[in-house]
């Protein structure tokens, strides 16, 4: 029974990858088709009316891929008889789900379709790595992970991570666009992007929105550590890096709100903070020592 679910989960994850690939191509085509050379001035312009249909397909594919991935993650959980957050393969597929979920949620509020290309590549790379390198058979949890706090702490951390990375992608787009504008014109593709100011605001809003959730994730982790290991804080590498991420984002919020940093400096700080999160995920899980080594590698 559990094998059937595990098999189904793999099948769903592969299907999700196929659909994300379609979404990626649709986003690429959308961008490519929109570029037109006007005849008189041989200047590139963008005509997104022409590609509205493709854009809709791209987003629809993203939604479908997301739903398949949700189903895959749930099936994985059923196969193991627990929440699917026991090893790095499972963290990765759930992380990819959170990231594209964060994108789709933000899409309801802001016009972010220009980001779809990047999001679909990132999700594909994450899922590809997960399937090819990190895959482990479905298995029950080690005793320390058997706790309601696993559900609370890890889901908060994964959602925060998804949103942080989305903010990072936008900050990176800001820097890219900014250097392009410093050189002169925007390329045709970049005309699709909103103004620098909007990008700047957007990454700030995303960070401000999830910072409390991240704070909660860290505190929930501390409560759990207290019940599992007898201390709520022990400067274990994973805890240390969660703290560093927290401090880095607090510094980012301070820099913006109280010192008034905007633009390039803020974007770099945002990227820095986000990279501490990624570092924690990759380095501490794979090469680190300490109590949090559940990667199963």
């Amino acid at each position: 029974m559990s094998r059937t679910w595990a098999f189904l989960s793999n099948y769903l994850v592969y299907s999700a990858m196929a659909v994300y690939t379609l979404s990626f191509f649709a986003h690429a085509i959308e961008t490519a088709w929109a570029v037109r050379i006007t005849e008189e001035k041989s200047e590139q312009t963008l005509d997104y009316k022409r590609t509205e249909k493709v854009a809709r397909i791209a987003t629809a594919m993203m939604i479908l891929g997301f739903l398949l991935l949700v189903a895959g993650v749930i099936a994985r959980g059923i196969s193991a008889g627990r929440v699917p957050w026991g090893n790095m393969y499972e963290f990765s597929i759930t992380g990819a789900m959170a990231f594209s979920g964060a994108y789709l949620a933000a899409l309801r509020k802001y016009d972010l379709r220009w980001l779809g290309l990047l999001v679909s590549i990132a999700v594909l790379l994450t899922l590809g790595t997960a399937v090819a390198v990190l895959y482990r058979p479905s298995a029950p949890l080690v005793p320390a992970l058997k706790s309601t706090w696993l559900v609370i702490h890890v889901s908060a951390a994964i959602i925060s991570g998804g949103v942080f990375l989305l903010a990072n992608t936008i900050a990176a787009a800001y820097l890219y666009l900014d250097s392009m504008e410093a050189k002169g014109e925007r390329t045709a593709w970049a005309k699709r992007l909103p103004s620098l100011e909007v990008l700047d605001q957007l990454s700030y809003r995303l960070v401000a929105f999830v910072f409390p959730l991240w704070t909660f994730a860290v505190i929930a982790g501390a409560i759990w550590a207290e019940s599992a290991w007898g201390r709520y804080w022990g400067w274990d590498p994973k805890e240390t890096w969660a703290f560093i991420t927290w401090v880095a984002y607090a510094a980012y919020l301070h820099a913006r709100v109280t010192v008034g940093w905007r633009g390039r400096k803020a974007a770099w700080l945002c990227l820095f903070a986000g990279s501490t999160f990624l570092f924690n995920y990759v380095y501490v899980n794979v090469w680190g020592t300490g109590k949090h080594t559940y990667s199963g590698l």
Partner: protein
Amino acid sequence: MRTALILLLLLGLAAVPGSLIPQRTQNPMKVSEYFKNSPTLSQWMDKFSLFDVYGSPWFSAIYILLFISLIGCVLPRTLEHFKTLRALPPMVPKNLDRMEHFDSWEAKGDELESARKWFAKKGFRTLEIDGAISAEKGYIRESGNLFFHLALILILLGISFSSLFGMRGEAILNVGERFVNTPTSYDSLQYGKLYKEGDLPPFTITIDKFVAKYNVETNAPEDYTLNVSLSEDDLTKSSKKIIKVNSPLTLGNTKIYLQANGYSPVVTVRDSKGNVAFQGPVPFLPQDGNLRSIGAIKVPDADPQIGFVGSFVPTYARSNGNGAISVFPEALDPRLLLSAWVGNLGLDSGVPQSVYRIDTSSMKQVGLKSLKPGESFTYPQGSIVFEGYQQWVNLQIVNDPGKNFALLGGIVAILGLLASLFTRRRRLWIRVGNRVEVAGLAKNAAPGLEVEVKEFIAMLKGEK
């Protein structure tokens, strides 16, 4: 503000080395390895407390400075905010048309009255003078922000309180053994400067049974269950309790955690005359997921002194490169591999020794043997019998009186953050003469004001 920001980043930076270099508090073995491999470098690193980053003077200096700067900033702001909370909004500015979101139209007459009602409904604080209302809202942003920063101070106080009044100790116990809560029962015991030894609550714990379940496919542990008998104050009565990894035993302020476990081979050592020189279980230290464990059996009372460097494998297999290995963590086919040494164990030298290792520098090897349970090994100076094995558990006993303050701080911090990140301070003005004039202003140009002003205007014009 600059200072706080720099200190905050510095604190993050200062936390980095501790996650890359092994730390004494977490991994003392790795630290001694470091010292063995590169002694001079390690000594230099030790001078800068790089093996105790989080207790080091420079790390403490950063966070103490940060919190001084925090207190120095938050206290005056709190006082000021108290005043603001009781003050009325400032008067309507003369030239509203220079403000953001300005709008103006022909007055009908009832605008002031509708505005008054609307402000009251929305919870604005208002000041009305001469046909003009100044309304302000969103003080909760500043309150939340202050609560957040004050909560950080509370967390720090909780942590300090624990380190002054708390205690934390560990004891390794074989199944069947009894633990009496006195300082000498502990293998390691630390307590705060203001904790008195007599404060240890009286209780005893007998380890009745320990069951570890493993997954037969992945060899990963699935469940650890420890059954104990507990006697409190009245030592004649005892009750049965269960301790699991995520559910410690709670006795008032003291909590008892199941921390680690392993195997203790049970041996009997005899001297050359056949007299028993040592008998009992000896805890060995697990080295891998399949619980291959290493340890040392020291018999200082034998003449000459004798020691065994041993390795215990719960489920024996041979590998080509590594000799004996274990292929499953349960004791399905246990072996004890011993090398016997005779000479001076060095226990009187005053240098503390690991109980899992023997300093064989002034000893001579007299034999090497692999034993199944029940088998014995005889060497010129005596013999050893591998009687079987017992399991051991490591109990961690903790009294952490400050943690509830820290928890309260954590909760207040989150609530404060939510209040400060999701609300905004803004002012709305209306002046009614021949024309109605409306304008708004948000602190830090916070977004969302435009919508509110539009709603206000629509209401005044009777469009909604």
